[in-house]
């Protein structure tokens, strides 16, 4: 295998919130959003690598950071043998000529105050390429090549449709004859029929100019159509990488599977297709789950060795565990529900009283604990649990009747702890189709690449990082 054109190692990009003067005065700690948390991948010359994930997974941030448009928090990027983050000014300039980007939003990626010709010409001016006439000629050439006409040179962006504007963006990206293009959701803002035009254009250009592409997208059908290899991201990490055919036909990581399954197909068989939808939402990047980040939604989360439980049950128990650990259960309303079935009391806001202290309350809770547990079970448990598990869960709920979150969490944690939460899975190094999941052989601890934040570029002080920005 030849040397890759682009090598990304342990790339990190954190955004810090609560970092203004006032916050420091108040002693608040900066909160970090780990948009990109230690990813590594290679891009080989001539190929198209797809970077796919849903919103908030960090894919766009990855694209911008590896081009140097954002300051990285850690990690290295080698482009054609050079370390991008430690280039001199002239080195950076040269890098810019070789690595360009096409942006997503055709309506804001062109300066509305500049003519189209001036926009495409700008990279040439910045790098002082050729004479004025040379530049004009080149712009004309580029406009024609992307399917527009040279006499549209003096028009303004608002005179063009979305698809045409995207062509202009592509022309601009090609002006300096780069080797490598980052395509950041190039067709997401376009209509379906126009998307096809642009995808064909990108394909043609790649052949004609020997380009290497990093295609960032959330649209799996586009990825399938144009990419050679695919990398799947979830919450700032890479969960699976592999050749496009394999990823789509035999995905390894449960997230990839879920992603593929969720895409509705435009065919008449679609209605009959069974889709197992993922439960819940993407966790907050401010506080990602320990171990495998996908475990809170993973339908195949791994039960501890030796435990007799089937998968849906286990998933249900883990859901309950997560709610308890996040203290995300409304105890008061459960008590209110219990109280409703009782003869009237003279108690005021019942739930709060019952949930609170005081002898009368405690006694009440003792007497009605079972009803409380029943109510919680009704609300939180959808899957029928077999007896031993049911008992355990009820035991945990019983602790909740006393308002003891920790104890409740413990009851379940000791019995149901999974490797998915204790050990972070990684991509198998030197594999063609690695998957960061415990369902697959994981390299032993000593062989793992370091994911320490202070690797590569010196640790960037939180003070120098920008304020929060989302993907």
């Amino acid at each position: 295998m030849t040397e890759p054109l682009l090598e990304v190692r342990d790339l990190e990009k954190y955004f810090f919130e609560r970092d203004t003067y006032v916050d420091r005065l108040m002693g608040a700690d900066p909160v970090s959003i780990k948009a990109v948390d230690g990813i590594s991948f290679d891009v080989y010359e001539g190929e198209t690598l797809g970077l796919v994930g849903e919103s908030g997974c960090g894919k766009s941030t990855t694209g911008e950071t590896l081009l140097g448009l954002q300051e990285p928090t850690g990690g290295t990027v080698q482009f054609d043998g050079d370390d991008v983050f430690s280039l001199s000014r002239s080195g950076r300039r040269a890098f810019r000529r070789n690595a360009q980007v096409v942006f997503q939003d055709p309506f804001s990626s062109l300066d509305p105050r500049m003519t189209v010709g001036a926009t495409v010409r700008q990279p040439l001016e910045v790098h002082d390429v050729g004479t004025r006439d040379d530049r004009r000629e080149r712009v004309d050439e580029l406009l024609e090549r992307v399917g527009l006409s040279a006499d549209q040179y003096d028009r303004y962006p608002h005179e063009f449709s979305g698809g045409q504007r995207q062509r202009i963006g592509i022309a601009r990206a090609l002006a300096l004859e780069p080797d490598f293009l980052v395509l950041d959701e190039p067709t997401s803002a376009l209509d379906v029929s126009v998307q096809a035009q642009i995808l064909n254009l990108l394909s043609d250009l790649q052949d004609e100019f020997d380009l290497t592409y990093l295609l960032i997208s959330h649209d799996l059908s586009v990825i399938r159509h144009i990419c050679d290899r695919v990398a799947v991201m979830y919450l700032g990490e890479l969960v699976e990488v592999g050749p496009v055919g394999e990823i789509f036909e035999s995905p390894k990581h449960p997230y990839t599977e879920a992603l593929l399954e969720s895409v509705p197909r435009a065919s008449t068989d679609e209605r009959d297709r069974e889709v197992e939808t993922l439960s819940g939402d993407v966790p907050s990047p401010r506080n990602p789950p320990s171990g495998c980040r996908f475990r809170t939604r993973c339908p195949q989360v791994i039960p501890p060795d030796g435990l007799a439980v089937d998968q849906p049950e286990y998933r249900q128990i883990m859901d309950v565990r997560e709610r308890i650990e996040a203290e995300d259960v409304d105890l008061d309303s459960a008590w209110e529900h219990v109280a409703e079935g009782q003869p009237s009391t003279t108690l005021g806001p019942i739930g709060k009283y019952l949930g609170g202290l005081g002898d009368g309350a405690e006694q009440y809770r003792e007497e009605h604990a079972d009803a409380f547990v029943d109510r919680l079970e009704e609300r939180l448990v959808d899957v029928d649990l077999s007896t031993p598990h049911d008992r355990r869960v009820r035991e945990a709920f019983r602790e909740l009747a006393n308002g003891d979150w920790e104890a409740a969490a413990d009851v379940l944690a000791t019995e149901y702890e999974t490797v998915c939460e204790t050990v972070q899975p990684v991509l198998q190094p030197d594999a063609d189709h690695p998957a960061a999941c415990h369902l697959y052989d994981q390299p032993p601890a000593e062989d793992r690449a370091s994911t320490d934040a202070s690797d590569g570029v010196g640790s960037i002080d939180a003070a120098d990082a920008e304020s929060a920005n989302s993907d």
Partner: protein
Amino acid sequence: MARDLLRVNGLTTRFFTQEGQVNAVEDVSFDVREGEVLGIVGESGSGKSVTARSLVDLIDDPGRITDGSIEYRNAELAEAARDDTPDAVDGDFVDVRQLSPRHRRSLRGPDFASIFQDPASSLNPSLPVGEQIAEAVEVQRRASANPRSTRSRTQSFGLGKFLVGAALPGHGFLSEDSKARAIELLEMVGIPDPAERAEALPHEYSGGMLQRAMIAQALAGEPDVLIADEPTTALDVTIQAQILDLLDELQEETGMTILLITHNLGVIARMCDRVGVMYAGEIVERGTLEDVFDDPIHPYTRGLLGSIPDVESAGGRLQPIEGNVPSLLDHEMEDRCYFADRCPKAMAECLEKPPEFDGPGTEDHRAKCYLADHPYDPEDALPEGYFDRPPEERTLGGEDRSGGRAAEAQVDEVGADD
């Protein structure tokens, strides 16, 4: 065979702007059957959203519905309206456009409800979600006592009540029943721990949850027809799958009719029984899902289906539809089939007169295209590059009739500016 619930005939909506008259929706006719999911698919500029908004009277200046009727079958409404506006009533069907404004407004909630693409913008960011849903419920409750009068819905909600409600939580506009129902609705749409979540503000909800909340709000009045305008476009694909499942479930449970508007053919395939394809303000093809997907007549439908990449196979080169969406400005539209300039099968007759799309009809698979009548005849094809010439220079005379545009390989062709 399910009966028609809604019959739209010749709906025409125009926008009168500074730059001219925009024919957003032109002579659109279709019917919606009780209990079905009807999909309207089209790209931007097709008029699908404007159609949806026209149905629920949400067209504002500078737009106006200039023609057509929207017949809604509702016996009770027919009774109520018969005295005020007898012309609007035809048996059990009522032409919504001809109703008095009062009656028309009363439809929102118990009869028609809508959800839109961006849930965040239809919820007030400073009020708890539960309260907003309870508000919707409350308004509907009061309405049900006096359905065709909208005044009773918000009666007694004056400044006094507002201030009292702010000071003493139990005595405001919202009754306890409404609040309880709001929590029920939140549960129905799958929001976990609804009692607690009801107190949260919209920004504490994720995108998917907001969309669910909007659906809950729409369901507050137990509507007959739910109009969903791009409900999942702004959502991630895994969340989209959840929301579509939810809509499916709700539809089964409540039997409501859904009009689903989207540009995503996959979503259509997943949800819809029948489909209408819109282009340049018109419905160009209509039929069952199988009809439209497996046996499309109109070249635009074909083009659309051929231009989408398939997640299940890499396939070969995509077959895009050449050119750009036409301008909808009245003075720029010519009197011909609007798709002719991009159509690989355009024939001479397509220019002479726009093809007809026969009335609302029944279950027939119809298309606004001459190809519905007779197969494509290469002899009649338009000459090469016909539309590349300026309008004055276009002729159909003898030269260059070599099989027309369909015969040549697909090349990304440059469309003229709009």
